[in-house]
């Protein structure tokens, strides 16, 4: 079935939902690369008008990636909760936007989440300005627990990201201490390994767990290895708090990552069986990012933002503690500049939150993108206002292993102070006990100076 709208006396026709969504998407380089972007500004707004008039129910009848060919589509449609969907079942996409801005509140949105599909929230985002993306996300409440409580109102958490180019334990430990001194680490202390060797994985897991245990830090640790490597580490008895995996929005992109829903389910079950969480059992950590499916030639002609939302359907199946879009990491061929990165970060955050995820954003850019620190400050501040669950903390914003710029520990302090946000409550108590509540001492706290880690 086709769709159409008339703009400036010209009738624009869209062959199917896939094309309608792609043409309605605010411009970004990845959709141009895929050849699915609107050909003109007029065609784009025509698609937005047609999309606004589309009933939300339609998304249950037309899949953008064929049901038979894709396990992510099957997951989305087979797990749809019709009862949860009922309160908005009569609305169009445009009516949904109006309802969200005018009437929706946190309890209603929490109840609604299982009734929304990724494609519905993707469609919504395409007719939202930045302020809508912020305002709607700010209404959502998603709370998760492992050794602390993330996502409470008035909190903003930080993933401490102490990456080292060769996984040198001293280099990692020094960065962990630096982050703790600057109030970071309540979301997770999480290392991207330079190599995914299981021996190495176990060694870094042991180091992080030793630091956490020694200082009795109410947080969780993670080494962001491939899920198959983490499974092996768990078999060897390594201290795995969270299982990490990069995921995408189609079966084919997940194939390219070497994962499937069944493999993720196996890893989830293994992590649950360890029972290492003290306050809750959210034990998965996922990363996503617009453009990954196109990068793997696994996009099925669907625009990158819609596919990103489909990755969130994979994530929510496993009740994760943390999900973040690594929004500016992928490069200028997908998100060209600060403007595109900013919009994508706010889209990803709102869409993830509406689908019920504890959504963080890696506010970041690479050196081949047209972006700089000013762009990051703007996006970080907007995300703080939008109620982002967590952002990254990297020493001086410079990740020396992954060779990109993310937010710094200082940035975390800035955004918390500017917006009156606090760390996760259990972590805030710990910071206070360590004398790190609101200042960083020149002298290391005695416990840290004598820990034998350095």
């Amino acid at each position, binding site marked *: 079935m086709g769709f159409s709208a008339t703009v400036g006396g010209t009738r624009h026709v869209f062959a199917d939902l896939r094309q309608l969504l792609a043409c309605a998407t605010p411009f970004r380089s990845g959709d141009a*690369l895929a050849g699915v972007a609107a050909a003109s500004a007029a065609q784009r707004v025509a698609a937005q008008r047609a999309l606004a008039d589309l009933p939300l129910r339609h998304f249950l009848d037309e899949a953008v990636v064929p049901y038979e060919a894709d396990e992510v589509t099957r997951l989305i449609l087979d797990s749809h909760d019709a009862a949860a969907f009922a309160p908005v079942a009569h609305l169009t996409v445009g009516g949904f936007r109006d309802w969200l801005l005018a009437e929706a509140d946190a309890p209603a949105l929490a109840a609604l989440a299982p009734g929304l599909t990724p494609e519905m929230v993707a469609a919504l985002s395409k007719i939202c300005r930045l302020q809508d993306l912020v305002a709607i996300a700010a209404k959502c409440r998603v709370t998760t627990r492992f050794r602390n409580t993330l996502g409470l109102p008035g909190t903003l958490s930080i993933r401490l990201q102490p990456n080292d*180019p*060769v996984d*040198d334990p*001293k*280099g990692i430990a*020094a*960065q962990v201490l*630096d982050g703790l001194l*600057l109030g970071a680490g309540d979301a997770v202390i999480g290392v991207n390994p330079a*190599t*995914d*060797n*299981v*021996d190495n994985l*176990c*060694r870094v897991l*042991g*180091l992080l767990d*030793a630091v956490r*245990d*020694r200082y009795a830090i109410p947080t969780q640790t993670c080494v962001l*290895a491939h899920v*198959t490597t983490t499974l*092996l580490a768990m078999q*060897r*008895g*390594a*201290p795995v708090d969270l299982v990490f995996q990069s995921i995408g929005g189609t079966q084919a992109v997940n*194939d*390219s990552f070497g994962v499937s829903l069944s493999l993720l389910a196996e890893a989830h079950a293994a992590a649950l069986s360890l029972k290492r969480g003290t306050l809750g059992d959210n034990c998965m950590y996922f990363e996503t990012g617009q453009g990954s499916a196109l*990068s*793997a030639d696994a996009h099925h002609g669907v625009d990158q933002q819609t596919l990103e939302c489909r990755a969130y359907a994979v994530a929510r199946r496993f009740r994760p503690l943390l999900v973040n879009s690594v929004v500016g*990491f992928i*490069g200028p*061929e997908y998100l060209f500049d600060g403007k595109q990165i900013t919009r994508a970060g706010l889209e990803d955050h709102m869409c993830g939150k509406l689908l019920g995820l504890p959504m963080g954003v890696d506010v970041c850019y*690479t*050196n081949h993108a047209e972006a700089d*620190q000013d762009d990051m400050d703007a996006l970080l501040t907007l995300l703080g206002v939008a109620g982002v669950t967590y952002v990254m903390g990297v*020493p*001086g*914003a*410079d*990740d*020396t292993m*992954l*060779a*990109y710029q993310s937010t*710094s520990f*200082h940035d975390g*302090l*800035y955004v918390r102070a500017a917006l009156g946000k606090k760390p996760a409550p259990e972590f805030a108590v710990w910071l206070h006990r360590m004398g790190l509540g609101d200042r*960083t*001492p*020149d*002298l*290391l706290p005695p416990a840290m*100076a004598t*820990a034998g880690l*350095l």
Partner: protein
Amino acid sequence: MSAPTLWRDLRRFTAARVALGRVGNGLPTAAHLDFQEAHAQARDAVWSKLDVPALQAALGAQVVASAAPDRRGYLLRPDLGRRLAEGTVLAPRPGCFAIVVADGLCATGVQAQAPALVAALSAGLQAAGWDVAPPVIATQARVAIGDAIGQALGAAMVAVLIGERPGLSALDSMGIYLTHAPRPGRTDAERNCISNIRPGGLSVAEATAKLLWLVAAARSLGATGVALKDEQPVVPLLEVERPFENAADPPVFSEVSQPDGR
């Protein structure tokens, strides 16, 4: 080294930007401008070019170009960087080991390190009985151009040495991607990666040893990628107070993909 007692002592243990100080919640002026300077240099490095004649003289290689028309086209169209320019001809050499030296997202590190690595790698491969094809230099190239080159040569395996995206602290990093039975359409999950080869990162000798190990393992397995696990033991770097020591099963490995010119 003595145990750290001051915040600034942390700097002894890492090249990361730790112990920068704190003014309110912000960076002290000098640290802020240090960052701006590093970013400016990295931006310029993205636009650096391979000195092809010099590299060709060092490697005895033939030179090919990708289908990308220029640097901007390369940045915006990775698909063109994965394909060979129209009309490229490579003499078939069935069953060989192919080595590709590619500029990727920054030419500096490849320019400096590829000659030594290619020499060590070729010697090691020949000692292991491989027929090593003369290296191929590829410009405006992404990792997957190795698939096209490998297929044209009929190579059994291809190693692509490629410039990694410049970071603020590393403008000179090279990565290596190993692909068994290369042909267009291979996914990243079918490759093994060694990254951060640079002064201060992984040395050329360490990278060569690791690559030779992976090549041997890939040959006996008949595959690269997530199916190939690195069973090389890791040398202990630090005794923590509670070291992890439940190593019952054989260690296993899978390399992650690193940011680079894919």
